[in-house]
């Protein structure tokens, strides 16, 4: 049982962070907070991928002259994928903030129910 705990503790924490996303998005009234929860969700996925690439005794995936052989280095593939994911999260953040500003300029509020009321008037 103990090794199950240490092996998978990290996954449970990551998945908790992951589910923080939809939770925050549904239950937080303020649109900016919804945006943050979306971002937290993306960071959680990045953590998940990096956790997959871990190796005991592996150093950072940069070639050291002396060290040959795959078991000495950490798996570089998840890192590549997650570079993409981080920049995607920045991209969606940029667009969403632009959207938020326009909404706020027109409807003057960022609280969800207040906004819906003003929209449907």
């Amino acid at each position, binding site marked *: 049982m103990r090794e199950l705990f*240490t*092996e998978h*503790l*990290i996954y449970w*924490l*990551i998945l*908790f*962070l992951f589910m*923080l996303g939809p939770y*925050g998005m549904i239950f*937080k009234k*303020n649109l*900016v*907070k919804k945006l*943050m*929860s979306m*971002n*937290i969700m993306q*960071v959680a996925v*990045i*953590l998940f991928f*990096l*956790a997959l*690439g*871990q190796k*005991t005794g*592996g*150093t*950072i*995936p*940069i070639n050291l002259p002396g060290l040959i052989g795959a078991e000495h280095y*950490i798996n570089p593939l*998840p*890192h590549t994928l*997650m*570079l993409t994911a*981080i*920049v995607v*999260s*920045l991209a969606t*953040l*940029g667009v969403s*903030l632009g959207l*938020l*500003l326009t909404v*706020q*300029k027109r409807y*003057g*509020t*960022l609280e969800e129910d207040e906004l819906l009321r003003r929209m449907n008037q």
Partner: protein
Amino acid sequence: MPGAFFLGFLVFLMAVTGLSALFARDLLASIIMFSAFSYFAVLTYLTMGAPDVAFTEAVVGVVSTTFFIVALRRMKRGSSK
């Protein structure tokens, strides 16, 4: 594997900052907590041995916090009317 516990602790810290970012009342406070969350994410990536990803996360963290602050400033001024 000592790394696992240290990693677990860092992710736990991230969870704490993430939750407080969501549950802070004032927007500016939650943005600050959010940048703290991003900061701990950088630390976690480093302990996971991913310098490239950590560097990018750090830089993206700075840029996204700047965006948030700028957007907040305009919203504050905008919402005055």
